[in-house]
């Protein structure tokens, strides 16, 4: 440090640290597959291992998305409360919902419960359109 440089005020140094911590993304404790999705998830996995398309592309994109979610639990697009489909509220009791884009016009939905991310569903485009009719952008 150059002795002629004025030392940085401690208050601003603390403020800088606080800003950094505020920007830190939420890292979930774990990512869990909902038991209701387990069968479909295993089917996607087996199809992908047999190099069948588009399952392999969807599987690969899902793994990429999960890697991102591990670093930032809120990485997906947050679905606003009034737009959460009743399916997710009634079947899972989800109070928050996130959507991620997958390959071949598929989408994945997950919720954050306590400090854990729970993957709820992987749907194709027609199913997504039923839940979000006329919705062009989230």
């Amino acid at each position: 440090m150059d002795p002629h440089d004025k030392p940085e005020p401690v208050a601003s140094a603390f403020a800088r640290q606080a800003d950094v911590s505020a920007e830190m993304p939420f890292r979930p404790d774990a990512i869990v597959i909902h038991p209701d999705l387990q069968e479909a998830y295993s089917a996607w996995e087996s199809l992908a291992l047999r190099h069948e398309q588009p399952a392999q592309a969807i599987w690969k994109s899902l793994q990429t998305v999960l890697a991102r979610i591990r670093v930032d639990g809120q990485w997906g697009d947050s679905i606003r409360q009034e737009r959460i489909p009743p399916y997710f509220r009634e079947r899972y009791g989800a109070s928050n919902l996130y959507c991620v884009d997958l390959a071949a016009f598929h989408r994945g939905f997950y919720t954050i419960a306590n400090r854990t991310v729970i993957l709820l569903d992987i749907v194709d485009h027609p199913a997504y359109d039923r839940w979000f009719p006329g919705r062009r952008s989230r």
Partner: protein
Amino acid sequence: MTLLGSPITGATRWVQDGRPSREAKGGISSYPGIDVLGGMALAHPRERIDVTLGTTEIVMSLLQEAGDPVSRNWLLERLRETGHTTSRARLNRALAFCLDLGLAVEGSKGVQWTHTTSPSLLRALSRGKRM
């Protein structure tokens, strides 16, 4: 502001108009190479901001009602609108309480209430396959 050096100790300090600078009075390290802050922090720990149970409950209910990720500024504004104006430090303390207990999370999109009592999600937490 000028930098003066001691011929005996070799220490230097910032001086303004012949007097120690404001930073020096406030305990900021104006003596390069000498760590005075660590000792000061131990001798004069900052007072811990306290918050009432009522404020914490209102913050929790605001987060639950919002459901979506919200900012701390949004919470401060809602508190003010509902006649429960509080300081940012107290809000931070109330949020730290919620975050430490796992009732809410704070991430890239803001603070969000995530505590659940849904049997389906609790079953997933206990039996779901972890990746």
